[in-house]
């Protein structure tokens, strides 16, 4: 078993329980805030450089043959079952609570299906789907790249004049955009169908009335697709960045995976806010 040095911490490692010595107690909050902002700025700059390099290598990079296909297949078939289960239940819950509320107010459920489908296409499938997908795909990417950093494989690549972003992040970036968007479109279908099931079972809404696409026009479809592509582009970049900035033995890999899951989810939420508001002003 090769020697994984976790007990001898890397220099500069802060105790994970967050206790920092050498600062008077009442200054502690400002110190944490200041350090947080500084870390955020440095992380932001490094993340931005990873994003630019990913774009550059997507079009210009010399790539390992079959890498994109391998990552795409792996991402796809590992998350289809997972997304079906999770998003199926989310769809049922949304329709159930929406129908319950409308039932209280007007008791007229014929528009519930239409409003719900419009929401799913425009935002729900992409945003909630991407957050859930981020936990799956994001942690996978960070785990693989993180363990390659910890076992010095990434440094070995640098010694051969190869930028790890070209070899590790770019193929996953392309694979994630293609496969991720396909999975999210599939998720939208799952949410609509599971919603139909819930509406029919619990509120007796006839599927033909439920499946009413009156509200859905090309604006919604375009916004939904733009969201899918943006989120599926952001997830590999953020998780790749978290993977590449791993330190501290196998415990560091765990930390990187945690950060990737949370940061990808936050990235999706932020992008959701940006795209939703901008599409709101453009189209309405």
């Amino acid at each position: 078993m090769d020697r994984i040095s976790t007990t001898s911490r890397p220099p500069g490692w802060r105790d994970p329980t967050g206790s920092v010595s050498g600062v008077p107690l009442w200054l502690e909050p400002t110190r944490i805030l200041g350090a947080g902002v500084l870390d955020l700025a440095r992380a932001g700059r490094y993340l931005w450089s990873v994003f630019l390099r990913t774009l550059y290598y997507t079009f210009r990079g010399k790539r390992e043959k079959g890498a994109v296909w391998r990552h795409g297949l792996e991402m796809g078939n590992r998350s289809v079952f997972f997304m079906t289960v999770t998003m199926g239940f989310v769809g049922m819950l949304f329709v159930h609570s929406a129908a319950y509320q409308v039932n209280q107010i007007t008791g007229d459920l014929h528009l519930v299906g239409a409003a719900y489908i419009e929401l799913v296409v425009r935002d729900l499938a992409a945003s909630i789907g991407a957050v859930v997908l981020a936990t799956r795909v994001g942690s996978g990417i960070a785990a693989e790249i993180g363990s390659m950093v910890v076992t010095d494989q990434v440094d070995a690549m640098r010694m051969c004049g190869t930028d790890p972003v070209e070899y590790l992040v770019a193929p996953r970036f392309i694979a994630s955009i293609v496969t991720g968007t396909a999975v999210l479109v599939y998720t939208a279908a799952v949410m609509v169908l599971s919603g139909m099931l819930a509406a029919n079972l619990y509120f007796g809404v006839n599927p033909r009335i439920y499946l009413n696409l009156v509200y859905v026009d090309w604006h919604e479809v375009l916004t939904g697709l733009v969201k899918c592509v943006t989120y599926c582009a952001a997830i590999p970049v953020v998780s790749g960045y978290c993977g590449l900035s791993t330190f501290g033995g196998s415990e560091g890999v765990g930390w990187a995976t945690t950060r990737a899951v949370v940061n990808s989810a936050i990235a999706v939420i932020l992008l959701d806010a940006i795209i939703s508001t901008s599409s709101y002003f453009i189209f309405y």
Partner: protein
Amino acid sequence: MRPGEAVLFPVRAVGRAFTDIAFQAGGILILALGIARRFFPPDIDVRELKRHLFSMGNRSVMVVAFSCFFVGVTMVVQATILVQELGAYSLVGWGSAYVVLRELGPVFVALMFSGRVGANNTADLATMVITEQVDGLRALGIDPISFLIVPRVIAMVVMCFILTIIGDAVALGGSAIMADTMLDIDIHVFWKGVHDFIKFKDMWLGLEKSVAFGSIIAMSSCFYGLNVEGGAPGVGRAVNASVVSSAVGIFIADYIMAFMLG
């Protein structure tokens, strides 16, 4: 692949998928029984429990608050169309509060908690297994379940409960602010909507869910942490599996509880 195998391959794949799930579900159940057995002669290391409560809370409050604020905000943004159409402005408070307290609050807090604390717990345990620290405990005649696992499970269930309360509050705050700016519904109107229609049962159901979610996240993260193989890459795989099984567990439990108790 020989033609015969080509036919068999999907069957074998599905079969293997089911045995995997059965193995993992069974393993989590055995772990749960093991933990329950350690409660009766209450053999819990209090110092470890305090340390975990502090580190779990400290690490996840910011993340939970941030994401719940946005949940509250998007709730109102989504509801605007419906509300403008039906003109039911006074009901916005009730509408968003109902969904947040019963469904979205607990689920989103649990997802973030699983990502932040669950994944971290799996990583810690997996690292301790790989560096033989768990074997070290066994060699010292100390029972790893009562020393390592029980304090973490209790801390996670308690923390998930508390964070759900904080998350609900922040989400409602977010909705109130958004309702004020976007639909210019006065805060008092919003609060009146919440106060009049929300029954104690709605709030209590959400908190019951958070306890269920907390224990699901605790069980699956400890299980995958202890059953890690294969050095550093193994840690990544364990964390990945833990996050996924927590998410699936959360949504299934949410569905069951919503329809059993709702």
